[in-house]
């Protein structure tokens, strides 16, 4: 897997965790059943996101920030040959690679980073 893609995936997962703590259902469960300290957790997640951001190249950092703030997600899955950022079919030559995650693919149609789940 491309190392920048790995970092982007991790950052996105952390952003999702962070956002989830603002949602009633998740926050209730995490602070209730699991007795998590929500505010401390938010601080820890934000610190980790900032730390990971430093591993990205400048253009990837800017693309990530732009996408996550304007379109919720920066990395989208490609499932059955379709980009889930825009629902446009991915050029077959891309998906035919031995492991398409070895490259950092950006959708030509919607600009999201793409990930091929196993």
């Amino acid at each position, binding site marked *: 897997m491309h190392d920048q893609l790995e970092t982007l995936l991790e950052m996105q997962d952390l952003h999702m965790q962070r956002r989830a703590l603002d949602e009633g259902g998740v926050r209730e469960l995490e602070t209730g059943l699991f007795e998590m*300290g929500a505010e401390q957790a938010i601080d820890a997640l934000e610190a980790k996101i900032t730390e990971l951001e430093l591993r990205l190249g400048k253009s990837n950092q800017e693309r990530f920030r732009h996408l996550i703030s304007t379109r919720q997600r920066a990395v989208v899955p490609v499932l059955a040959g379709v980009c889930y950022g825009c629902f446009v079919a991915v050029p077959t030559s891309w998906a035919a690679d031995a492991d398409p995650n070895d490259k950092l693919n950006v959708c030509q149609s919607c600009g999201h980073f793409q990930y091929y789940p196993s």
Partner: protein
Amino acid sequence: MRLRDFFSVDAIDLDLSTETKDETLKKLVGLFHLDEKSEGILFKMLKRRENLGSTGIGRGIAIPHCRSLVVNRLRVAFGRHGAGLDFKAIDEKPVHYVFLIVAPPLEVSNQYLPVLGKIAQFSKEADVPERLAAVENAEGFLQLLEEKGV
């Protein structure tokens, strides 16, 4: 929605012989048969969640969970550890029963929270720890879920 429909027999391990919490998380993630990198990312996310506070909810039960793009649908696994593991659980007692739940960030049918809730509900039943201890095989585990109506 029935909990048993989310578990496959090959994602149930009733004889965990792992030594640590980390090793156990890795072992259970391995039941999903992802590629190595995806397993690594998932393990890291689960660890990070544990660092925010243990998912050991007491009475020998832990429910590690997270969302990640490395899975393309909701996945669950169950592991039982005879000797018990140090999970830094809320009641500080060893953990014998581990329910692992992972889901993609966005799901069409939004099953993550309800499944997590059902496992929590199941875990709270008074006789569940002893019933889980007595389960003889994966099929027995699934029958127990069914019997409890979760």
